[in-house]
């Protein structure tokens, strides 16, 4: 099993969600987050003074899926999230030792 974290542009959330579902992902957790990479924030203007705002609003999606479909899930999400501009985000793939469905006690891939 793999955990995949997607940091994406907030306006791309719907498209990425549809792409993940189509690729066989059954559930996800999302968080509104702030951060920066190469995009390095933006400028805001208050009474004529410019301020650098370093942290940009992004959405983080977390999913856990079977090893077999992981490459397809990553590629589907990338295709949905891309604009080609700096600031499109990142995808991280992490190994997962185990999982459990709380209601039934099922473990492993059966739990996801």
């Amino acid at each position, binding site marked *: 099993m793999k955990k995949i974290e997607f940091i994406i542009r907030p306006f791309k959330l719907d498209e990425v969600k549809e792409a993940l579902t189509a690729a066989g992902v059954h559930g996800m957790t999302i968080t509104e987050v702030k951060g920066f990479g190469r995009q390095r924030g933006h400028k*805001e*203007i*208050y*009474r*004529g*003074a*410019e*301020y*650098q*705002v370093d942290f940009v609003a992004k959405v983080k999606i977390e999913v856990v899926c079977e090893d077999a479909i992981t490459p397809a899930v990553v590629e589907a999400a990338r295709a949905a999230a891309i604009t080609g501009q700096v600031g499109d985000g990142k995808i991280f793939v992490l190994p997962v030792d185990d999982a459990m469905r709380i209601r039934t006690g099922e473990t492993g891939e059966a739990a996801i």
Partner: protein
Amino acid sequence: MDAADTGFVLMSAALVMFMTPGLALFYGGMVRAKNVLATLMQSFILLGLVSVLWAVVGYTLAFGTDVGGVIGALNHLLLAGVGGDAPEGWTLTIPPAAFMIFQCMFAVITPALITGAFAERMRFAPFLVFSGLWLVLVYCPMAHWVWGGGWMGAMGALDFAGGAVVHMCSAAAALAGCLVIGPRRGFGKEAHIPHNLPMTILGAGILWFGWFGFNAGSALAANAQAAMAFATTHFAAAAGALSWVAVEWRHRGRATTLGAVSGAVAGLVAITPAAGYVSVGASLVMGIAAGAVCYWAVLQKNRFGYDDALDVVGIHGVGGTLGALATGVFADFGEFRGLLAGNPTQLWIQLVSVVATWVFCFLMSYVLFKVIDATLGLRVSPEDETRGLDVNEHRETGYQW
């Protein structure tokens, strides 16, 4: 006594009262979320503190029998003799109580204006001490000098609704305050960004609305001068909003909401001393000038390095000064004539009143701040400043998220 005049002044007093919570919202939106309640409180509590002081001693110091042109006598202590019946020699057509309560609202909002300068770092207790002493030692003499039979009014200085008494006076105190208390932590290094501009915009709208009472009500009668003051007030605010936005659009490439409301307030401040004395055409010119000049003025604080957090000096100080001088240029109402109406002396008188107001209010406020800083301490600790004033000073938080 005149029923229409009395009703008009009482309604105007209610409008001016509403400006103080309006100012609280205007300022409250501009600070960071952790200081929103402390900032609202510094305006709102003055409805309590200043009103009580006004009844006890403030009114009589400002409007008691003149003593040497500098202060009122104590003949109206605890509002003695300030009732429904006018005393002999009283020329107004409203009861003394109506005049007193209208003036009370001016006394409330003036020290509230100062709070923008030391926002986000002032302790509550020394703030209360300062505001009470400042009312008695600075505001009451100023109000007496201009409106209460003192030397400035006798000299012929024109201040229709408080360009000197309210705006320059509070701005001079604001400058003294931010110099004594010092800049906020991180000033110039980290961005202090407004946490809720919709709140600020609502506050500015309430200020604009209340200002009709402030300026038109200052005619103290429901007459032609009040109608003119109402109109000039509106047009100066409108022109100020447009002018500020136009200048910043050209300078920074965007029209901002904070710019629009700041320009409107700048226009309102500038027209205040002139409202009942100038034409609508002059009010448009003054509004345009105020929006552009005040935009430039607020940028200067970054150059000089003093942290006037919410730009009291840039908007109320510069706008008030501009308005007082422009009154000497554009005044043309009955016997009140300025430069363009063939009376250049008026501009000189206005200049004297401007300099005297700045010097007196700045020096008195500077000493007051210094004394309170040395005895009580004005400022929160660095750790408390980082945590925010709301939790430290009031044991509350503005938002639960």
